[in-house]
């Protein structure tokens, strides 16, 4: 059996192909995640008049490797009074569901793990499992601060998942398909951020809150909760919770690009995969920017933003989109 035959055999088996796609996504996320940690630290240093990491490698670019070695070699501490099995399982549940979500991301028209019929719905479903992992971590730690952080995280995720889904539904109504591939192909003439400005703003804020990044990071506010739901974790399990946060962020920036900025659609002279990765990283840097520019909201402000502003706005956006679609405005898509 030569290589082409082997490839075709694997391609024909959806299970094998799905596992390989998830693995490729995992490797991509780990390398990009490490790199983006470095970019974030450098940029944070720039914004705060510091240098950031400088010692390891040129410009400190290998700092994340040093961090990783530190995490792996540290003691894996399990709280003796906590619920040990639940505590140990929580980061694994978190990361594995997010990687499963990543297996349906299309990097280019042909480089796609699983072109499932439900596409984006599967992604939202996988996102909806992560509050359970967070609760498991908070409960298993047997620690007031962890549990408080976990409950804040769940409240925030539940309240922002609705505007997030509704703004995605507006795009789906326009395209008439849940498949991410078809959503991207529909953006041949014009990228959707121009047709869906309101939905785009709602989506951006909601994905920010979903990933729990700084203006919305009530669940792990260091000054009050000492770090939130993952405070009892150490060693590689703590590393996995951090990786989970970064995968959330990377998936969020991929979704921004796929839904509103034309996915792999290019300006020529580079293959579509490269364009998709470039766009994703621009979105990632912009998402990380706000962490260092905007101070944290209070919890009541966050819940207000979710329920009083984003939810009505996303419903309004869906109503307008539905009306325009039924009047036949978007029949050319």
């Amino acid at each position, binding site marked *: 059996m030569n290589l082409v035959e082997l490839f075709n055999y694997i391609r024909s088996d959806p299970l094998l192909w799905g596992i390989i796609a998830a693995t490729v996504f995992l490797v991509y996320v780990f390398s990009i995640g490490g790199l983006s940690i470095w970019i974030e630290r450098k940029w944070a240093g720039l914004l705060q008049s510091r240098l950031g990491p400088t010692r390891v490698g040129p410009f400190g670019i290998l700092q994340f490797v040093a961090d990783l070695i530190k995490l792996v070699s540290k003691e894996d501490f399990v709280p003796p009074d906590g*619920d040990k099995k639940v505590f140990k399982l929580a980061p694994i549940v978190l990361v594995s569901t997010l990687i499963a979500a990543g297996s349906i991301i299309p990097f280019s028209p042909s480089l796609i793990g699983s072109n*499932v*019929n439900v596409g984006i*719905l*599967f992604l*939202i*479903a996988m996102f*909806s499992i992560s509050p*359970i992992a967070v609760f498991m971590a908070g409960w298993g730690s047997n620690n007031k601060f962890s549990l408080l952080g976990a409950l804040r995280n769940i409240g925030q995720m539940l309240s922002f998942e609705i505007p997030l889904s509704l703004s995605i539904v507006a795009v789906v109504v326009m395209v008439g398909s849940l498949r991410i591939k078809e959503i991207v192909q529909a953006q041949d003439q014009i990228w959707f951020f121009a047709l869906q400005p309101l939905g785009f703003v709602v989506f951006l804020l909601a994905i920010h809150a979903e990933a729990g990044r700084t203006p919305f990071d009530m669940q792990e506010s260091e000054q009050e909760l000492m770090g939130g739901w993952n405070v009892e974790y150490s060693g590689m399990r703590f590393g996995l919770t951090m990786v989970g946060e970064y995968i959330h962020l990377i998936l969020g920036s991929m979704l921004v690009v796929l839904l509103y900025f034309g996915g792999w659609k290019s300006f020529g002279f580079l293959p579509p995969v490269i364009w998709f990765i470039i766009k994703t990283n621009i979105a990632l840097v912009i998402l990380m920017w706000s962490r260092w520019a905007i101070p944290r909201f209070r919890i009541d402000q966050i819940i207000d933003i979710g329920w009083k502003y984003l939810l009505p706005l996303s419903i309004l956006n869906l109503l307008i989109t539905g009306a325009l679609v039924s009047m036949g405005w978007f029949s050319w898509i």
Partner: protein
Amino acid sequence: MQSLMLIISFLVLISALMVILSEDMVHSALFLIFSFGGVGALFLSVGAQFLGAIQILIYTGAVGVMMLLMIYFTSKEGKSIKREGKYSGIVLVGLLGFLILYPSISITREVGGTKGLTQNIGRLLFSDLLIPFEVISIVLLSAIIGATYIIRREDH
């Protein structure tokens, strides 16, 4: 695919058994959530992708989190499982189970293969099953209004 289905069914059954066997309430809830997710995976493996994704989204995501939060907010000791009203509960579950199971078996027969795809489910929901669909949404609305009323009454 057949072997995958068997493995998933086995896991679902084991975790469903563990729901009643484990003594810790949180463990029971987590096993129940796992079996919800397994049922979603079963739907996915027979090709009913829309049902699978919705099963994971609604049951594993929403209902599961609600269950965990309820355990956290209501249980004082956190561990004990109360056995009050066991027999009436069994009767009620039996009746409700029969009511729910009968249509769901016929629906499962309907949605196998390509019938479980999004377009076909949507067509079914908005043509043949339109009245049940609307009735369910009214039932949900009344539940929300009832919950709000109960919370408000305790306030004053």
